[in-house]
């Protein structure tokens, strides 16, 4: 069974990272960087203002970048019958979804954390702020990944599912955003801890909600 899980993870990871037609992991990272680059143009070259608001911009950009790959997270596999074939082999939808959350996080979490370095430079963030942003992203992106996969499973097969899933993720990501970006203002560990807690809740729910959604999409 563990061999199958690794095979599954490898497939998901290469599909989401290199991603053929979908642009893979490069697209969210470029999107993230372009938001960080546009923001100083929009608000003007006011260094203190940029430094004060930059951390929040990074968070919003990260959230929006996480939405980009939603439409190819679950739906293609339902359409081409992969979930049916896995079910016949005794591989539950819950397991597939759990593996997919991990693969999705690997494909956008660490790349975004790396891209946050040049983004911080563009926004003129100091080292201490950058550190809090990075720890916050580490705590928050797993939750965003879990949320993304869950919503992608829920909207699979619906007309306009891609646009709908983006709209559904945003309000549900608000707790992560509030605590993650909020930790910048207070500079405190409590915000980071709550970001992590929100992530853990989403991670715990995702396999079951996503698995049930895939089964429901079958009938």
């Amino acid at each position: 069974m563990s061999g199958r899980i690794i095979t599954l993870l490898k497939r998901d990871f290469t599909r989401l990272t290199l991603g053929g037609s979908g642009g893979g992991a490069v697209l969210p990272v470029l999107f993230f960087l372009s938001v960080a680059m546009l923001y100083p143009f929009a608000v003007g070259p006011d260094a203190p203002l940029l430094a004060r608001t930059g951390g929040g911009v990074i968070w919003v950009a990260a959230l929006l970048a996480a939405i980009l790959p939603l439409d190819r997270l679950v739906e293609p596999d339902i359409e081409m019958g992969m979930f049916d074939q896995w079910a016949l082999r005794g591989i539950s939808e819950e397991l597939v979804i759990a593996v997919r959350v991990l693969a999705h996080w690997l494909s956008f979490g660490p790349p975004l954390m790396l891209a946050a370095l040049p983004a911080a430079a563009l926004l003129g963030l100091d080292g201490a702020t950058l550190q809090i942003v990075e720890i916050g992203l580490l705590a928050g992106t797993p939750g965003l990944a879990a949320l993304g996969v869950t919503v992608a499973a829920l909207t699979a097969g619906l007309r306009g599912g891609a646009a709908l899933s983006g709209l559904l993720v945003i309000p549900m990501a608000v707790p992560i955003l509030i605590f993650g970006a909020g930790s910048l203002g207070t500079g405190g560990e409590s915000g980071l801890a709550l970001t992590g807690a929100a992530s853990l809740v989403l991670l715990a729910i995702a396999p079951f909600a996503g698995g049930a959604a895939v089964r429901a999409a079958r009938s």
Partner: protein
Amino acid sequence: MQGASIAVTDLACRRGDRVLFRGLSLRLQAGDALQVTGSNGIGKSSLLRIVAGLAPAFAGTAETSGTIGLVDERHALDPALPLGRALGFWQRMDGAADNELARLGLSELLDVPVRYLSTGQKKRAALARLIGQKAAVWLLDEPLNGLDVHAVELTETLVAEHCSAGGITLIASHQPFRLGHMRTIALAEYAA
């Protein structure tokens, strides 16, 4: 593959708010083959999905023993990947077994991305996936769609070999499927 069986008892199937068929009972033992015939939309595919455990029965039961392999119109091969790697994924899932690529005429196509394959070539690739799975129960939904004369004969031979090795085959198709000992039922007789 020993001890494989399908037992369908008094089965009814509903799609939406319409009952497609009811009162269907089947018994298949090791080595048996059965073709379900009927016009489009009569519930052949639904029957296969119920037997596979992928769809709920409206009434009655469908029990199987033995591993189940399914080939339907969805080939479960990554369209972006070359055929060799798409099949390789399932080989790693199922444990490396010979999937008869040469016989199916797929050896030359392993470098071709799945999305460039023709309907018949995809069907043959799905058969290769099925053979590699070494499942005891084969559920084939319109297995001959898109296949040329040669591939049709090959599929019939593969099914015959599977049954003589103690496997079970349940075929849903409106096309004639030539197989010596195969039984046929017309689903129209059970239409609700």
